């Protein structure tokens, strides 16, 4: 997109470098002059927060590897050594373990924000799909990372999740043996996961690069979901406006993060993971990390092994086609009275599924899981396509400037009465 200003190298060295590698110009156009819709709210700071979390996880991870031993007989002890003996090891490990949870809190807010404001609609379909790919990579990375401490939950979580692949007809059992590198989850499995857990964050960083590239090519969506018409009136330069707003959002997020790290560092973990892995005893109640619980509930809701696995992966796969399931021309829920209600019902159902995933698979929990799973898919496959046809949407503001400052500023007239709210 056309920016607010153009980088002009002044000194001789700057000119010399710009002629050979225009990297300063690239940074200027994407992080300084880049036009940001002037009506963005704090939900738009989560992209920056997520970038920060990715870097933070890589940094804490790299230093933890200096002390961790990926060996089934030593892994658990090496984590305890990090906690007790390594200088600030407790801090680094708690930052990394809670950082994973914070990463998922931020990504879920980021995704729900995208759903609420219709950020996946044309021309942002590829941007959204890249985001879903990042989400999948994050899940794989987090799952493999949770196995590394080699506690009871690590071991049995690894067993249950790798066994999901055995549901695939014909080749399933061979895939599981290949993932394990043996006939059960064991030392070879731990080494596979350690290697991939180190690799995948860098793959994520690469896809994040594409995600940001796509974002900067099509421009950001905004709470009103109308496209930028006039850069001067509708947008502000990224620096200082978005940089500082992202900074404020990040500070509050880090306070939340620090509260967990320093006051309740094990709140999101599971006590069983402080028991060393025992291949002969399954804990009475296996639960995955909280961020997988909704998908785990969907897995258990279907009374068939293959069916459960298909439903669980389908729950993520459906996100890939979301841009084509939601057929409404209007992006933002602000102007979609019915969609807004269904959105909040969907959020409630997703949270309910998460709660059900933490409950034992019996009695009323099974029935509720089935109903919630059915609703999850109905939301995407029935409600969204129908809303696109039948919903009567509210009139959109003529421009972003109009919606923020009132119609006189933007100079639009016909749509003036249309904007029911003048302040975002």
């Amino acid at each position, binding site marked *: 997109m056309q920016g607010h200003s153009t980088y002009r190298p002044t000194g001789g060295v700057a000119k010399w470098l710009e002629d050979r590698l225009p990297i300063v110009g690239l940074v200027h156009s994407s992080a300084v002059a880049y036009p940001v819709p002037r009506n963005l709210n704090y939900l738009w700071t989560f992209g920056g927060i997520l970038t920060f979390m990715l870097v933070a996880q890589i940094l804490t991870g790299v230093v933890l590897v200096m002390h961790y031993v990926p060996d089934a007989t030593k892994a658990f002890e090496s984590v305890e050594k990090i906690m007790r003996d390594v200088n600030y090891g407790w801090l680094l490990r708690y930052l990394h373990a809670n950082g994973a949870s914070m990463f998922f809190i931020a990504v879920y807010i980021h995704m729900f924000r995208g759903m609420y404001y219709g950020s996946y609609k044309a021309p942002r379909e590829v941007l959204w799909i890249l985001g879903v790919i990042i989400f999948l990579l994050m899940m794989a990375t987090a799952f493999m990372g949770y196995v590394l401490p080699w506690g009871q939950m690590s071991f049995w979580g690894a*067993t249950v999740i790798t066994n999901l692949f055995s549901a695939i007809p014909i080749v399933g059992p061979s895939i599981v043996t290949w993932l394990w590198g043996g006939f059960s989850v064991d030392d070879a499995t731990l080494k596979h996961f350690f290697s991939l857990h180190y690799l995948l964050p860098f793959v994520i960083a690469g896809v994040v690069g594409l995600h940001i590239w796509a974002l900067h090519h099509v421009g950001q969506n905004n709470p009103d979901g109308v496209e930028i018409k006039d850069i001067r009136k509708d947008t502000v330069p990224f620096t200082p406006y978005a940089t500082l707003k992202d900074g404020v959002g990040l500070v509050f997020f880090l306070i939340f993060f620090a509260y967990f790290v320093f006051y309740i560092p094990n709140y999101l973990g599971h006590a069983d993971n402080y028991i060393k892995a025992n291949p002969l005893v399954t804990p009475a109640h296996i639960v995955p990390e909280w961020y997988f619980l909704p998908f785990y509930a969907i897995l258990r809701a279907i009374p068939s092994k293959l069916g459960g696995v298909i439903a669980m992966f389908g729950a993520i796969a459906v996100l890939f086609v979301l841009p084509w399931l939601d057929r409404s021309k209007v992006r933002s829920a602000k102007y979609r009275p019915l969609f807004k209600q269904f959105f909040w019902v969907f959020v409630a159902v997703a949270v309910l599924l998460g709660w059900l995933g933490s409950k034992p698979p019996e009695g009323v929990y099974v029935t509720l899981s089935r109903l919630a799973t059915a609703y999850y898919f109905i939301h995407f496959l029935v409600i969204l396509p129908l809303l696109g046809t039948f919903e009567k949407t509210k009139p959109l503001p003529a421009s972003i400037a109009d919606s923020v400052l009132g119609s006189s500023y933007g100079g639009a007239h016909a749509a003036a009465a249309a904007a029911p709210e003048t302040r975002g």
Partner: protein
Amino acid sequence: MTATDDAHDPGRRDFLFLATGAWAAAGAGFLAWPFISQMNPDAASLALGSTEVDLGQISEGQVISIKWRGKPVFIWNRTKAQIEEAKKVDLGQLPDKSARNENLPSDAQATDVNRAASGKENWLVVVGVCTHLGCIPLSNSGDFGGWLCPCHGSHYDSAGRIRRGPAPENLHVPPYAFEGDSKIKIG
């Protein structure tokens, strides 16, 4: 043959490009295989020996769990009542009608005779791994007098057959043989 001739005969040039590309792809495939295959079980894992168990210590009704190839194997000295209960079950009631017994042909049916040790019907030897997602079921629990998997609620009967829940198959019977009256060799 000059360059000008090639330009007049694009079909020949295209064929050479495609053939070269195909060879390169095949070569890449061969090179990729070692990178994939190295993750499969290595020679040491494949060479895992068998395990011998003395059954003399197992009293009637008791289930013991021993480790074989990194997995638990349940050995159950079943009581008369438990055997009768398993025998009474009609094959039509079973979700999985295959015996899943590696000592028998793969089309053997899941009768109690085909599940228990041949000629010693009180002994039931099964791999203690739930056929759903690999948890270890709890012995002497569940609604069918056998095992209950705590992870996702699969119930197995007193012949280790799946009766209710998400597991698709009966508990597997590993290859084993009696060596004398009170000793078995698994594997």
